């Protein structure tokens, strides 16, 4: 079995030294009309380069661009589609992070690629493969307000976002992405919507071409629908173990036909988990996973940690995973 150590999404865009604060400063200067959009772009490029360099230095096999350019996981995608406008702030799950809520005001349409340029840039500055990450149609739909009769039903909203994101998946695959991660955390809030959620996932899967699709779910317990997740047409299931005390045993017993992304390391707390505990969980599960590759990653993106702690988390993860490689 091939074990791949990766990041689950975001990476801090700031640090304690002045050279790690250029993006914050440039955005503040932009607000005072002392910097241009090109200046912001250059600062973002610089912080993407640093995020990738740190992931590689920590020893990851597969990196992300750290979602450095994302205002938040919702508006970065929804706000770039035609037919939306952006509203006020709302708490993101049970974190202390806030996102801008989109409002659907007109027919949704993707006029141009959303993430392809960002993905290309990340590849150009990375010595390791890059995994693009996007937020899925169900999560975007659940967090959108509606001012347009057409989208009053959640089902119509999920469909409309799925059409737009399927185009994005096809373009990312054409740009060379071998593994594309789709985050759908909102399904942990109410799995009564399972059929709508699953329809959105299937629409994306139809567009993936030769790329592999990873569905990542965090911020809640996935145990109630673990079996149903296995039936979805995706290649990898990313699971947040921090909310699911029974999940390790369950996977050890029921196994997994799909590749898993094991989020055993808490991406939201600075504490480094005891190595022996994490290793014991891997020992229990790895023999039961019937795929050629298994991914290990933090339970969530790392932006909810200070930069030095995020880096230490990744080093810790690599240290543990290395014992299981080959």
């Amino acid at each position, binding site marked *: 079995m091939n074990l791949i150590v990766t990041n689950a999404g975001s990476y801090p865009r700031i640090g304690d030294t002045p050279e790690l604060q250029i993006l914050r400063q440039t955005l503040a200067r932009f607000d005072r009309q002392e910097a241009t959009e090109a200046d912001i772009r250059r600062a973002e490029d610089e912080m993407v380069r640093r995020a990738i360099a740190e992931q590689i230095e920590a020893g990851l096999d597969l990196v992300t661009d750290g979602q450095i350019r994302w*205002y*938040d996981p919702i508006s970065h995608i929804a706000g770039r589609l035609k037919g939306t406008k952006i509203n006020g702030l709302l708490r993101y799950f049970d974190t*202390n992070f806030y996102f801008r809520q989109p409002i659907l005001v007109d027919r949704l349409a993707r006029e141009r690629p959303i993430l392809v340029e960002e993905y290309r840039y990340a590849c150009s500055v990375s010595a390791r493969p890059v995994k693009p990450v996007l937020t899925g149609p169900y999560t975007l739909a659940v967090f959108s307000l509606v001012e347009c009769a057409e989208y009053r039903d959640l089902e119509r909203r999920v469909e409309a976002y799925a059409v737009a994101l399927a185009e994005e998946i096809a373009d990312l695959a054409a740009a060379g992405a071998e593994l594309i991660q789709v985050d759908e955390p909102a399904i942990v809030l109410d799995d009564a919507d399972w059929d709508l959620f699953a329809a959105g996932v299937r629409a994306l899967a139809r567009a993936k071409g030769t790329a592999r699709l990873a569905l990542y779910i965090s911020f809640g317990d996935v145990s109630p629908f673990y079996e149903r997740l296995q039936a979805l047409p995706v290649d990898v299931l990313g699971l947040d173990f921090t909310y699911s005390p029974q999940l390790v045993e369950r996977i050890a017993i029921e196994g997994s036909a799909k590749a898993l992304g094991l989020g055993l390391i808490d991406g939201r*707390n600075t504490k480094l988990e005891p190595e022996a505990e994490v290793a014991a969980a891997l020992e229990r599960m790895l023999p039961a996973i019937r795929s050629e590759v298994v991914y290990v990653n933090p339970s969530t993106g790392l932006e909810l*940690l200070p930069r030095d702690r995020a880096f230490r988390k990744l080093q810790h993860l690599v240290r543990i995973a290395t014992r299981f490689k080959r």
Partner: protein
Amino acid sequence: MSREKLRRLGLDLPLLPTTSVGSFPKPDELQQARTRWARGLLSRDELERLERRATEFWIRTQEELGIDVLVDGEQYRGDMVTYFAENMRGFEIGGLVRSYGNRYYRKPIIVSEVRWERPITVSWWRFAQSLTTRPVKGMLTGPYTVMDWCFNEYYPDRRATCLALAREIRKEVEALIEAGARIIQIDEPALSVRPQELPLAREALQIVTDGLPAYFISHACYGAFEKIYPHMLALPVDNFDLEMSNSNLDLLEHFKRVPFTKDLSFGVVDVHSHVIEDVETVVARIRQGLEVVPAEALWIDPDCGLKTRTVEEAIAKLRVIVEAVSRVRAALA
């Protein structure tokens, strides 16, 4: 019933007492001084002199406006959790973490047993109270919110962290009472985030307040109260201070279905908006509040701390509140 408690504590407040949630904006002079201090260009003593001057300004301003129950305005605080973390044992102040957009804060890390070693807010409370004959509230952040807003590397779980904090924060409450504070506000803005943990928040607040002779207020904001109402009424406080106006008073509908059984500090102006509400709008909101909570149990204040407004906006919003309350009082008399 709470009126009786207030009287027993020696507090004779008018009908519809006016108050504030806690923070006021820092004057430019203090804002700049904080930046200079952070860069090592200003002494701690000089910064504190300016913090005292700003506190005095806000006490005078509240008195002149005719507010009934005053706050010190929190001119000496950066963040409501970090301030307590910096002044108790067991915390390390971590690196920057983003809260939204281009805004960052330093999230504390609990690295060893949390310990209250000496009074934290008492000297500020004493100073503020020495400037006025009106009651000044003691102001603390509650154990559930401190737990939720810190990283934890020491305690086995959230529950152990929260209860340990509760035992230590109680000591600050005791110190405030010993100094003479009779109204103490314990802010729990994180309360509604994980509804399943409400019993834990309740247990922790019980530890903080149990048997202590003070009138307790708890402020909570950031919405989602439909998830914890009416269960939140079991919390051991006398008064809930709630953000009402930025959600079109939606909460009142819940109070119509299940009666609100505590005193209510009713937020009647939106703190996130530059727009100064008309007196008529605020009068109408107070009247709506009176439909579900008896006048004896109703307090009037802004939705939340006013620190994000300018000094002028904050004063204008408070002035509208006082004016609206005096009209409603006249009509009730």
